[in-house]
């Protein structure tokens, strides 16, 4: 069936995820799930970037900026203490509506902050809005001018995070509370919730994949591919290229924001090190090696490379590995390593062998 074939990656992935969890739990090695969970959140960014670069054909060298906007918004709203305003009518009103929550931090101080769920929604909305506003002017640029503009965007977000007191400046924001979806299910790095969070992360990733696959196979997806092939031709055929580019840009930014916000709650903190140019280049390298237009490949490489990096397998050569991968892919196979090979050709080759 067409449907099965289309979602093959998601189904296989889901089975593999469950299998992995069962195996790890049986071995008593559930601690690997921590890094897999973190990698899953980073992969959300890569999936979004894959849609933007592989299908819409627009390069972004500043996607870490969107990840950070999502993460920082969540962090600021859930740690900014409004307790001084207690007694002000609309503050109490918000509190009774559940928009603000009161809690105690680890050291017993009383806090009144925005509810994490609301902050999460705000993070996604704000990032999407900013992506829209930024995309309006810069998506009119082409080729390397667009790349430079996105680089500039990432740099501005970095500078703002580094220079603003509310955003924690160089040390970032820590003590971010868990994100409670409902009683008993929350996004947090604490040990008892580890398996739960593993599944939450993967659920988010699978949802993103399904969204992505739907987009690719829809009319919008075909329009995007035509834009990637030849923008002028698509434009002349009546495809509203600018609108499609902008929507994909905003969508990919939203994916990045979700990843950023969830990871911030999982880690309990976020800092300017998530917004560096090196991080954006990493996402680019992973997307490239996974296959520019291959969602499954991007996901796989995202998990694999981030996992190895977080475990310190690359040692002091961490950045060099990603730089090297980027060069290797660009030199040797710019369509990515995991591009689905032509099966008919492979099968006929094998058949020929057996006959000869």
């Amino acid at each position: 069936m067409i449907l099965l074939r289309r979602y093959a990656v998601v189904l296989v992935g889901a089975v593999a995820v469950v299998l992995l969890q069962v195996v790890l739990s049986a071995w008593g090695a559930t601690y690997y799930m921590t890094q897999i969970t973190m990698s899953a959140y980073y992969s959300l960014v890569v999936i979004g970037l894959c849609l933007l670069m592989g299908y819409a054909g627009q390069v972004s060298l500043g996607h870490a900026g969107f990840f950070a906007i999502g993460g920082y918004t969540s962090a600021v709203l859930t740690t900014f203490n409004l307790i001084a305003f207690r007694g002000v009518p609309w503050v109490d009103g918000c509190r009774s509506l559940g928009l603000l929550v009161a809690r105690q931090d680890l050291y017993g101080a009383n806090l009144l902050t925005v509810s994490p769920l609301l902050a999460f929604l705000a993070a996604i909305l704000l990032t999407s809005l900013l992506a829209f506003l930024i995309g309006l002017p810069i998506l009119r640029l082409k080729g390397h001018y667009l790349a430079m503009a996105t680089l500039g965007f990432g740099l501005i977000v970095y500078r703002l995070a580094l220079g603003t007191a509310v955003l924690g400046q160089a040390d970032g924001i820590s003590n971010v509370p868990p994100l409670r979806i409902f009683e008993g299910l929350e996004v947090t790095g604490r040990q008892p919730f580890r398996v739960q969070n593993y599944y939450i992360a993967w659920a988010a990733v699978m949802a993103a994949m399904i969204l992505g696959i739907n987009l690719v196979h829809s009319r919008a997806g075909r329009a995007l591919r035509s834009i990637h092939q030849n923008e002028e031709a698509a434009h002349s055929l009546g495809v509203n290229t600018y609108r499609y580019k902008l929507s994909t840009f905003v969508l990919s930014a939203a994916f990045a924001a979700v990843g950023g916000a969830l990871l911030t709650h999982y880690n309990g903190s976020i800092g300017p090190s998530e917004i560096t140019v090196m991080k954006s280049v990493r996402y680019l390298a992973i997307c490239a090696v996974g296959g520019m237009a291959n969602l499954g490949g991007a996901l796989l490489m995202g998990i694999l490379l981030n996992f190895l990096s977080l475990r310190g397998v690359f040692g002091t050569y961490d950045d060099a590995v990603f730089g090297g991968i980027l060069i290797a892919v660009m030199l040797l196979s710019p369509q990515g390593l995991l591009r689905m090979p032509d099966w008919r050709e492979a099968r006929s080759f094998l058949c020929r062998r057996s006959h000869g």
Partner: protein
Amino acid sequence: MHYAQIVQYSLSGITVGSIYAIVAIGFNIIYNTTGIINFAQGGFVVFGAMTAISLSRFVPLPVAIVLAVLLTTCLGGLVELVFIRRCRDASILRLIVITIGVSILLQEAMLHIWDEKVRSLAYFTGTAISTVTILGAHFSPQVLWVLGVSAVVVAALAVFFRFTLTGRAMRACADDRMAARLCGVSDRRMVTFSFMLSAGIGALAGCVISPVTQTQYDMGPPLAIKGFTVAVLGGLGNSTAAVVAGLLLGLLEAFTVSQFQVAYKEVVSILVLLLVLVFRPNGLFGGREIGALRAS
């Protein structure tokens, strides 16, 4: 602000602007011949300085600088031969991404060859505390060296491109590669040559700014970004404009500091880059052809 302060800020702006300008000159050479924006240019600058610093322990300073420039020139050629030449029909974007990868590898290599410590080349004239006084304000004589070397390089390049055969061949490649090939110009050799020239100028820039900025293995990317900003501001491909743009940006930054919090100085220069890209991508002094790259 009284007069002496204004002059002092201006000198400060010129100091930092001259650094940007001399880095930007290297960008334009490669851009002119190939259309690539070479992100590894910052890496060449730092490599040149590091090499000169290491060599200056064994040979006199001028010799060390000459050797460093030669070594970096070879490095530039090597980079082109290994990475760029393979991709004959690649899109410009792909090549730019490759240069990003090269800049990362270069940085890691420098970290492992030298280490993370900060170094600097000896001052060309005077010491760390010498000053020159103009109109009541003071600055280091090394700044005059930076400005002087920039001016000489720009002039030399102008002469080179206009009056020498190789220079004209490179300009021919930039204008129309196919036509140049038809005239017998080896465009592949010109591309290699442009990388070598850019790297050599980058190394010279690195040596002359090292006493002012100090040198550390990870200074490449920030320098490259500033250099690129200035090159775009002046108009990609125009070296004289790059120098003027560099000085303008430096002055803008210095006077921003005088009025606002220092913390936002960097934001100003990035904003300038974005505004230029969006509203006037052909730069302040650039021609019309580059504008054609912008979608309507």
